[in-house]
């Protein structure tokens, strides 16, 4: 039809191909690590017929971590699509605009408050750990999201990004102080938290991770059409029948639902939300939000999983953090976007 090809066809093929690659990568990751387990044995473990030792490694140690990487990558990828559409800014994402930092601060303050309120509060927090840290992250992200959305009306793209990154550094400083006081309550939550980590999530935590993310996905899909209209500007979106104020609220709510549980359980996972929408747009040949959602979810999951595979390489003694791996891939892409993209060059 056109030099760009048919976006529907490209999206369908891309989505199918990514799903297959993701499934294959997940199977590979289940066998990968200090103890190598052959693919046949991984299958056997998944259906409960493997050697108990191998079964335990696959289903108890690796499966929760890999499921977390997939859920987190998908959530952050879609969160990035929503943020970039909402802010009309190709380098917006929950992490780069400081929302993740807000979530960390929310969790840190919650845990500190409990630590200072005495044993009853600590016991309460520990028995509802998943719910309360997710809630703390949601609150922090929501506050930071509203602040950045209002700031975005006054400053340019790059200024917004710098403010977001500075918020991240500030919060990192605060969190490291807070952790010192809050270790009694938040020990497990905070282990390896500033570096991003998929390994701290246990099988029992997965519903708390997946349910808000699923709700965020539904909300994202529901708003894909008006968000597409917003790509040509607020006034045009309104003239096409979009209630822009409501769309902003719903989209920010979706971002909170998608990003808060990931931040609460995995810490700040960088770059995925920022670069994945660019992959998705390149695959689809369009910026329409509808086709980008499955593509971003799958490529986000794949990127998160690939980074996790590197982190858990058998020769690797955990000197590479998740965010270090993501930065090695992501930072050059962001630099290229800033330097070479005609829309970003020369913007204040």
């Amino acid at each position, binding site marked *: 039809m056109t030099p*760009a090809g048919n976006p529907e066809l490209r999206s369908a093929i891309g989505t199918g191909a990514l799903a297959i690659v993701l499934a294959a990568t997940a199977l590979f990751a289940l066998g990968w690590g200090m103890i190598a387990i052959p693919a046949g044995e991984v299958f056997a473990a998944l259906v409960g017929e493997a050697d108990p030792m191998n079964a335990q490694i696959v289903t108890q140690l690796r499966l929760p971590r890999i499921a977390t990487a997939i859920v987190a990558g998908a959530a952050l990828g879609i969160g990035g699509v929503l943020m970039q559409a909402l802010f009309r800014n190709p380098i917006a994402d929950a992490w780069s605009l400081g929302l993740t930092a807000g979530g960390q601060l929310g969790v840190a303050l919650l845990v500190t408050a409990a630590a200072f309120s005495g044993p009853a509060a600590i016991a309460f927090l520990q028995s509802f750990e998943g719910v309360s840290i997710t809630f703390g992250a949601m609150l922090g992200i929501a506050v930071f999201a509203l602040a950045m959305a209002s700031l975005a009306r006054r400053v340019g793209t790059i200024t917004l990004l710098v403010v977001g990154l500075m918020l991240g550094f500030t919060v990192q400083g605060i969190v490291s102080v807070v952790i010192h006081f809050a270790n009694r309550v938040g020990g497990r939550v905070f282990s390896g938290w500033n570096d991003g980590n998929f390994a701290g999530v246990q099988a029992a935590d997965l519903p708390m991770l997946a349910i808000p993310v699923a709700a965020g996905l539904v909300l994202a899909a529901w708003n894909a059409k008006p968000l597409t209209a917003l790509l040509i500007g607020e006034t045009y979106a309104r003239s096409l*029948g979009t209630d822009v104020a409501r769309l902003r609220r719903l989209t920010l709510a979706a971002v909170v639902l998608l990003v808060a549980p990931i931040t609460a359980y995995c810490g700040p996972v960088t770059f995925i939300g920022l670069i994945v929408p660019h992959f998705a747009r390149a695959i689809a040949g369009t910026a329409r939000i509808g086709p980008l959602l499955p593509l971003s979810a799958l490529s986000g999951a794949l990127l998160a999983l690939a980074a996790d595979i590197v982190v858990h390489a058998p020769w690797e003694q955990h000197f590479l953090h998740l965010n270090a791996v993501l930065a090695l891939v992501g930072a050059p892409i962001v630099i290229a976007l800033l330097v070479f993209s005609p829309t970003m060059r020369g913007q204040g």
Partner: protein
Amino acid sequence: MLRLDQLAVGYGAPRGTVVSGLDVTLAPGSFVCVLGRNGAGKSTLMRTIAGLQGALAGAALLEDEPIAAMRPQARARRIAVVLTERLSSPGLTVDDVVAMGRSPFTDWRGRLSADDRALAGAALDTAGAAPFSGRLFDDLSDGERQRVMIARAIAQTPRLMVLDEITAFLDLPGRVETMALLRNHARSSGAVVLLSSHDLDLSLQLADSVWLLDGRGGMKTGTAQDLIAAGDIGRAFDTAAVRFSARLGRFELVP
């Protein structure tokens, strides 16, 4: 049919009322140019008629229905808007942008029916934007983008098109072509086309009628000839250095 009923447009303090007491009726198929100096209230009037901003008093009615009271989706099905703002929308194709004109008519997923596709294709042709199909919107020149935005508005099959200073970035042939195609579209579709412009002479040549904002809160309406003959153009635009010559039909320097 578009009717203004004692319409007053403007803002709250400090700017206040910009234009008031507007009483006009336009027949279907009219091509009307809105003229006036910067700050006379063209954009405010256009935005109010398009339902993007509230009126201070009175009402604008499309086919006897107050535009301000329409639900957003219902309004989008009947009123299309084209603005002068320069857009950057990385990754959107020309076809995506034109298809958005159908979004008030599609389901929640925005899936296009065969009719929607046909209307979008026809709109590209009408606006002379068919050669840009398949390209990225951001790769087009300003003039080409403006044609795509007009195609999007045509694809919206509106009863009223509101176009605010859309010829500002176009060269002269582009302006003439754009205004001619809008006039033809008004004729053939029966939509009312309302275009604000700084192109005085083109507007005076092509418009069925002219709305002339005098810059003092009032508006004169009539055919170009009437307004020129009555000296209204001169009163709206003359400065100490420039004046409109009714005899020449254009501006001249004050000797």
